[in-house]
């Protein structure tokens, strides 16, 4: 078994298994914790509307915060959108999802993917530099932050090298790329990357609770 076979075979299988196992474990573990009923007289009965409202509107900063958070949010947006484009727009990735789910959609031209990857990598580097240099972020950051950054950065970087056939043979690069994705999948449920699922739950929770009170959301 060569490296690529290992990557495409057992590594991916087990990474995907750990991925779903960890995600369901964490989500179920949170959601099944106790919830106390709220007997207070609701100001608005339609709390679900608040959940939706907050899920949607918290996607951009409120006017009052814009000046202070614009840069961080912009860079965040750039690499998030970049990742979505790369993960779901690149033909070989679509094939990956097709093999898993049977779903297919049109791919983007490779030139677009390459440019996006370059921009995404640049944004990720900016994010890291900011995390290392901003006093607040440096204080808050722990292993999870840096490791999650690494496992996000690595697939994009190795993916670009693979497409460019740069640095090693293609099959080795492809194997490393897939292994980096496997690492991402394995780490995903246990670190902050879970925010991609939790963001909806967390925002929805606050949105519903606050809408009930008529509080600001």
């Amino acid at each position, binding site marked *: *078994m060569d490296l690529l076979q290992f990557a495409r*075979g057992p590594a991916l299988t087990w990474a995907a298994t750990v991925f779903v196992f960890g995600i369901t474990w964490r989500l179920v*573990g949170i959601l099944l914790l106790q919830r106390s009923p709220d007997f207070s007289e609701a100001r608005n009965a339609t709390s679900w509307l608040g959940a939706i409202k907050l899920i949607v509107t918290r996607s951009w900063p409120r006017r009052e915060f814009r000046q202070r958070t614009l840069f961080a949010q912009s860079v965040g947006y750039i690499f998030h959108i970049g990742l979505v484009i790369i993960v779901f727009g690149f033909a070989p990735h679509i*094939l990956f999802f097709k093999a898993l789910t049977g779903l297919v959609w049109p791919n983007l031209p490779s030139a677009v993917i390459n440019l996006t990857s370059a921009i995404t990598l640049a944004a990720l580097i900016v994010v890291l530099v900011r995390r290392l240099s901003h006093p607040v972020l440096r204080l808050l950051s722990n292993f999870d932050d840096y490791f999650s950054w690494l496992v996000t950065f690595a697939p994009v970087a190795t993916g670009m090298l693979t497409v460019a056939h740069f640095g090693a043979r293609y099959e080795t690069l492809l194997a490393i790329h897939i292994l980096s994705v496997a690492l991402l999948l394995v780490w995903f449920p246990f670190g902050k990357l879970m925010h991609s699922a939790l963001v909806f739950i967390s925002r929805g929770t606050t949105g519903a609770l606050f809408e009930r009170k008529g509080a600001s959301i």
Partner: protein
Amino acid sequence: MNEPDTLGAGLAHSGVSRRSFLKFCTVMASLMALPPGAAQAMAAALSQAKRQSVIWLSFQECTGCVESLTRSFDPTLEQMIFEMISLDYQETLQAAAGEAAESARDEAMKSSYGKYLLIVDGSIPTKDGGVYSTVAGVSNHDRLIDAARGAAAIVAVGTCSSYGGIPHANPNPTGAVSVSDIIKDKPIMNVPGCPPIPSVIAGTLAYFVTYGKLPELDHIGRPKVFYADTIHDRCYRRPFYDQGKFAKTFDDEGARNGWCLYELGCKGPTTYNACATIKWNGGVSYPIESGHGCLGCSEPNFWDKGSFYRPLSTPLADNAHIIAAGTLGGIAAGAVAAGLSRKHQTHIGEEK
């Protein structure tokens, strides 16, 4: 045997003109990307060289490699290699049979001991004492070890002798292995492919005859002159890959327009061979040009790397059941974790 001493004389004797020999050398030099001036030097060296004694052993094989060489589209050119060598033993091609054939081989092995070139096609079965392939009661394994002892170098022709090939494919019932799995103390060159391109076989042999040594090899023993680039790197459909234009099925618009076959499982990106440049049938086309993806036949274990039609970027295994199990396991683990936390909380509550 009263054959002429030098190759040049021998060629003349067989009616091969010196111009055709020079042409052969020119073509070979061009194929191997040797400096253009090398052709004349090659011709000069070859004409003064002795005919190279070659012993060709066929093990677990289909004869496709020999067919590739002998029935190539431009037989005259590639077959000229046979004028340059003294093929002292080749079961398929030789006229002699039985005892006579065996003794011819033994004779050659003795008289050219330490100098002959050993060519092997086919893999070597090792299970059950190697009984799955024997010639004259001797297993392939023993024959190889015996013949390798006096060889100056070994050329493994075809993927079977290079990496085990199809006999080696899962579940490998005969315990087939490659030449290099058995022989460790001789220079071995692998010329894989199922079959290899005839010009590649001829070119590598010509190189050995000319220079008396093997050309530079890559990390899995292949001559770099032919196996340095992937099919994908040299593929004429590469621009479509770069543009993200892919055939989705073998009969869609993309396929008709000659778009990239990556999505149809083409192994071009991970396959090192010269098909895309030298092509087949005298340069007519090669698999991708005929509308089918590369199978990756010159790579080790090509038969076991998932379906030929499974794209490279996809997982090899069908993971649905194990992923489903993971999900259920996660739900269970999560429920247990939450249950423990709740119990813990109630416990604290009661204590108060």
